[in-house]
């Protein structure tokens, strides 16, 4: 565990207490079973925002606390433990970061206070296919007299059913595959010509597919610089990715602890199954991976806080390590629980499903390994 300052310790403890009291896995299960239309519980998110968690990376001038990324990572880890569904990553982390880094004073004033208070949900609309590849952005933004006209489709948009604001990656010039020519636009969900449809994935969250049909925007809708949005997009995505990694770490820790409890209590052949060396060694292996992964996730969060030059590599390492570890632990959670772990009534399957969805979001483990290697010159 990183050495935390007083603020961070308080933040983590309050998140831990809240999760224990208000958001155990049963809360997620109820949300799933009632097919909550947004893919999360708005009342629970309102409570989170009241505690200030939606404004952790937002400057005080815009209603946030500016505690930083390591601080938000601590909250996300606690949320991950019990599979809390909320727009913390999509809105309070990813979209907020994009606005903080790339927004004009007007744009920041308009959106950041609402995001910090949890009154508005914003999200990135990047991918156009099932596999993450931001440079392949093809959604077309044509210059008009007053601004731009956007036509195209986006899919698997996180919290897309709840979002009030989409930060849409569009192509103002160049070809799919090129960094040059990507521009980010702020597109309100009620813009004329924009429609959305829910995509039901195995992890029961509020993904949406978007269709933009000649959506007219003024020039003031451009976030950052026209044609040169790829850098801002990449920096924003890296902040989202490390948030995902923090959630994955929290999930891994909880999946491991639940499994460890079972090893200590389940009796077969007249002894607890945790007394068998074959299982002990597998538990020790998981513990080892968890420790390694925690180092990677905390290092990436700290790199962002310090604006370190090697941030992208640190993030790729964190997302890849968290992905591998979470798959290992969630697989073992099912296998070591045996038949009961295969039932819907048990939590193991929920972790396994969420694990795959998180891996696929903003770059798979393989994609980040390849990225890490390229950045390192391999």
């Amino acid at each position, binding site marked *: 565990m990183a050495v935390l300052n007083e603020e961070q310790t308080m933040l983590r403890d309050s998140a831990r207490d809240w999760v224990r009291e208000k958001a155990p896995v049963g809360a997620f299960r109820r949300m799933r079973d009632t097919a909550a239309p947004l893919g999360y519980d708005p009342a629970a998110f309102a409570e989170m925002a009241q505690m200030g968690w939606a404004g952790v990376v937002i400057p005080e001038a815009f209603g946030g606390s500016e505690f930083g990324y390591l601080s938000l990572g601590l909250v996300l880890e606690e949320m991950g433990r019990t599979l809390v569904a909320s727009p913390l990553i999509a809105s309070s982390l990813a979209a907020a970061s994009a606005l903080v880094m790339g927004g004009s004073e007007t744009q920041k004033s308009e959106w950041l206070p609402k995001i910090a208070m949890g009154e508005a949900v914003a999200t990135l609309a990047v*991918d156009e*296919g*099932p*596999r*993450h590849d931001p440079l392949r952005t093809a959604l077309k933004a044509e210059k008009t007299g007053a601004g731009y006209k956007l036509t195209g489709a986006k*899919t*698997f948009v996180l919290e897309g059913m709840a979002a009030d604001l989409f930060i849409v990656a569009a192509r103002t010039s160049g070809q799919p595959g090129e960094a040059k020519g990507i521009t980010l636009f702020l597109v309100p969900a009620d813009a004329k010509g924009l429609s959305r*449809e*829910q*995509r*039901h*994935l*195995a*992890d*029961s969250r509020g*993904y949406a*597919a978007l269709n933009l049909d000649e959506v007219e925007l003024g020039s003031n809708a451009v976030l950052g610089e026209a044609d040169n949005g790829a850098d801002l997009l990449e920096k924003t995505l890296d902040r989202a990715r490390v948030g995902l990694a923090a959630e994955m770490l929290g999930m891994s820790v909880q999946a491991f602890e639940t499994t460890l409890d079972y090893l200590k209590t389940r*009796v*077969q*052949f*007249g002894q607890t*199954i945790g007394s*068998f060396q*074959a*299982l002990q060694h597998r538990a020790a292996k998981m513990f080892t991976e968890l420790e390694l992964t925690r180092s990677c996730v905390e290092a990436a969060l700290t790199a962002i806080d310090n604006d370190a030059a090697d941030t992208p590599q640190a993030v790729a390492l964190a997302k890849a390590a968290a992905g591998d570890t979470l*798959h290992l632990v969630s*697989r073992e959670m*099912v*296998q070591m629980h*045996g*038949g009961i*772990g*295969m*039932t*819907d*009534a*048990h939590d*193991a*399957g929920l972790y*396994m*499903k969420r694990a*795959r*969805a998180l*891996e*696929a*979001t903003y770059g*798979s483990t*393989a*994609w980040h*390994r*390849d990225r890490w290697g390229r950045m390192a010159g391999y």
Partner: protein
Amino acid sequence: MPDFGGEPEAFRVEAREWLAENFPPSMKNVDLAMTVDAPTGDAKLWKERMGAKGWGTPTWPKVYGGGGLTPAEARMLQQEMARIGARNPIGGMGVMMFGPTLLEYGSEEQKQRHIPPIVRGEIRWCQGYSEPGAGSDLAALQTKAEDKGDHFLVNGQKVWTSGAQYADWCFCLVRTDPNHKHEGISFVLFDMKTPGIEVRPIKLINGYSPFCETFLTDVKVPKENLVGPLNGGWTIGKRLLQHERNSLSGGGGSAGRFAAGKPLDQLAKEYVGVDEEGRVADPDLRTRIIRHQMETKAFMLTLMRAAAESKGNQGPSNATSIMKNAGSKVGQDRAELAVEIMGSQGLGWEGPGFEAAELEQVRNWLGGKATTIYGGSAEIQNNIIAKRILGLLDHQ
């Protein structure tokens, strides 16, 4: 092909002619063996014809309605059926597990009564083995059968009873002596309509309910339904598990079923795209697909080698002990790779935006996680290899 004398080849001609006459072409590549609803039309016809001929259970004795074929003839029948896309319509636990066990251990009366309906595919059997406290340690089972003169009175709870909600009969392990662990177990049969049986389906992580909890309260089981000697059920129960494992590890078993669908390299080219040389564009994923395909090839070669060795009368090959673990690994790896290849599109649960094959893939991936748990978990299989094949002892 050393054992193809004149006579077996004559059988091939006979099989081909019979199939030409009796196989409804509309049943090509249709798998009826696992269906729940009663078949109608051509499906009913095909099932009845195969049942009457006994070829759904080709090597079972003719006296009980089986095909009475030699293993060589049965293989030829299988080849001829595969050639025209004819699937065996007779299946289920009765065929795969219970029938072969009853043929070995049942009384003449029991065989006369229970084997012919299995041969005709009329009766569905379910397995009353595991209990909440007896999973990997199956012999710890507590479901009690008390001797009441002409019948046993059975009380207890079974779990993971496959297809219990559709089954007509159950073969069940019960405790008839509380003082001896393995030597206190008996193997009994009962009609699922007997009063006192309550079945509750268990929903699994893939949303399906192939298994049930089965509650037994004062269930009367006639003494004539005891298979083998009283307190001698463990041996019979284990023998049945061998049949179960064989059926789970074979190419047509669960490992094969979960490996259905497009070849992974083709899938990857569609979803991931290709590089300038036409190879899967993601090099990391490509390497792992290749590794998996090679492991699959090794598994298929081992299946063939084991079949050849047992055919060569050298007895069961050592290789058979690894089949369940090797086969389930191949199936699970494949499903995980397929989900990874398809990205978010491979995680669709329901609703618009997904192809049927994509939705099926995610359910298969999750359902396939059971293959290393049921029928003796991967850990139990490894114990069997370590102790029985390798001669390693428990620490003393």
